[in-house]
C-alpha cells in the first residue's frame, strides 16, 4: 500500500471524501475510454489540487498501474474512520480544520469528521466515537444545571407566591 497520508490534509470530512471518491471514479472511467481522454479529465474535470496530485502520481504509470493506484487510493479513503460530531450550526473552514486537527491528534490519526447539524444542541458537541457517546453540548449542560438547581429555583419561585 502506497502512502496516501498526504491526502489527509485536504480531506477532513465525510463530504470531502465523497467528493474525492467521485473524482477518482471519473479518472478511473476515463482510463479505458477513447472519447474522453484521461488527460482531459485530469485537467478539466477535477479540482486543481486533485488534478495536481494525481498528475504527479500517475504521470509515469501505464494504464493498469494507474487503475491499481486509483483503486488503492479509493480503498484508503474508505478505510478512514468516521467520527460523528453533532453541532448546533455549520463550522467555518478554519473551525473545521481546528476540530479535524484536534480529532486526528487526540483520537485517531486516520479519521474523518462526520458533522451533523442539530440546532437543538445549542453549542458544544455530541461526540460518538469508539463505542462512546459523549454529550458535552450546551443543551445538556443547561439541562443538568436546571435539574440540579430545580428545587432551589422552585423555592425562589414559590417565595414570590405571596
Amino acid at each position: 500500500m502506497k502512502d496516501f497520508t498526504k491526502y489527509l490534509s485536504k480531506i477532513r470530512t465525510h463530504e470531502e471524501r465523497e467528493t474525492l471518491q467521485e473524482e477518482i471514479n471519473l479518472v478511473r472511467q476515463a482510463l479505458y475510454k477513447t472519447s474522453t481522454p484521461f488527460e482531459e479529465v485530469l485537467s478539466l474535470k477535477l479540482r486543481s489540487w486533485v488534478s495536481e496530485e494525481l498528475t504527479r502520481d500517475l504521470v509515469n504509470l501505464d494504464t493498469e498501474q494507474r487503475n491499481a493506484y486509483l483503486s488503492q487510493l479509493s480503498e484508503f479513503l474508505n478505510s478512514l474512520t468516521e467520527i460523528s460530531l453533532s453541532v448546533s450550526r455549520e463550522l467555518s473552514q478554519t473551525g473545521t480544520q481546528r476540530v479535524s486537527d484536534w480529532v486526528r491528534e487526540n483520537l485517531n490519526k486516520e479519521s474523518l469528521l462526520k458533522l451533523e447539524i442539530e440546532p437543538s444542541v445549542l453549542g458544544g458537541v455530541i461526540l460518538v466515537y469508539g463505542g462512546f457517546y459523549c454529550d458535552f453540548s450546551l443543551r445538556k449542560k443547561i439541562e443538568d444545571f436546571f435539574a440540579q438547581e430545580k428545587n432551589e429555583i422552585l423555592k425562589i419561585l414559590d417565595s414570590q407566591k405571596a
Partner: protein
Amino acid sequence: MLVSSEILFYGLTLISISLSFLVIALVILFVRSIASYHKLKEEKDKLQANAVQLSQQILEEAQSKSEKIIVEARTKAAEILKTATIFTKDERENLNAGFAKATLGYIEEYRNILEGTKAQTLQILNNVSKDVKDQAGAGVSEMRQAITAEIEKAQVSLTQTFRLSFEKIDKELALYKDAKIKRINESVFEILKKATQNILGKSLNMSEHEDLILNSLEEAKKKVIER
C-alpha cells in the same frame, strides 16, 4: 373543583330532604290541629244542644209545676165557691183578695223559676264557649310552639351543614390553589430553562461556537474516553 361541586350538590340534596321532612311534619301537625278543632266544635255543638235541651226540660218542668199549682188553686177556689153561700159579702171579698194574692204569688214564683232557668242556660252556654275557646287556643299555641321548634331545629341543622360544607370547600380550595401554584411554578421553570437555552445558544458567535466545541471535545476526552 369537581369535588367541591359534588359536596355542594350532596349538601343541597341533604338540605332539600330535611326541608321536605319538615314540611311533611308541619302538614301532619296542621291536619291534626284541624281534626282537633273539628272535634272541639262538635263537642261544643253537642254541649250547646244538651244545654238547650236541658233548659227546655227545665222550662217544661216549671210550666208543668205552675200549671199544677194553678189547677190546684182553681180546684180549691171552686170548692170554696161551692160553700160560698154560707159566707158573707165581706168574707167573699176577703176570699177574692186572698185568691188574687195567691195567684200573684204563684205568678211571681213562676217568673223567678223562669229567670233562674234562663240564667242557668246562659251560664252553661258561656262556659261551653269558654271551654271551646280555651281548648282551641291551647291547640293553636301548641302547634305554634311545635312549628317554631321545628324551624329552629332546621335553622341550626342548615347552619351547621353550610358551615361544614364551607369549611370543606375552603380546604379543597387551598389544596387546589397549592397544586395550581406548583404547576405554574413548574411551567415557569420550564420557560426559564427554554429561555436560557435560547439566549445562550443564540448569543454565541462563530469563534465562541468553535471554541466551545473544542473545549467540549477536551472535556469528553478527559471525562469519558481516557477514563
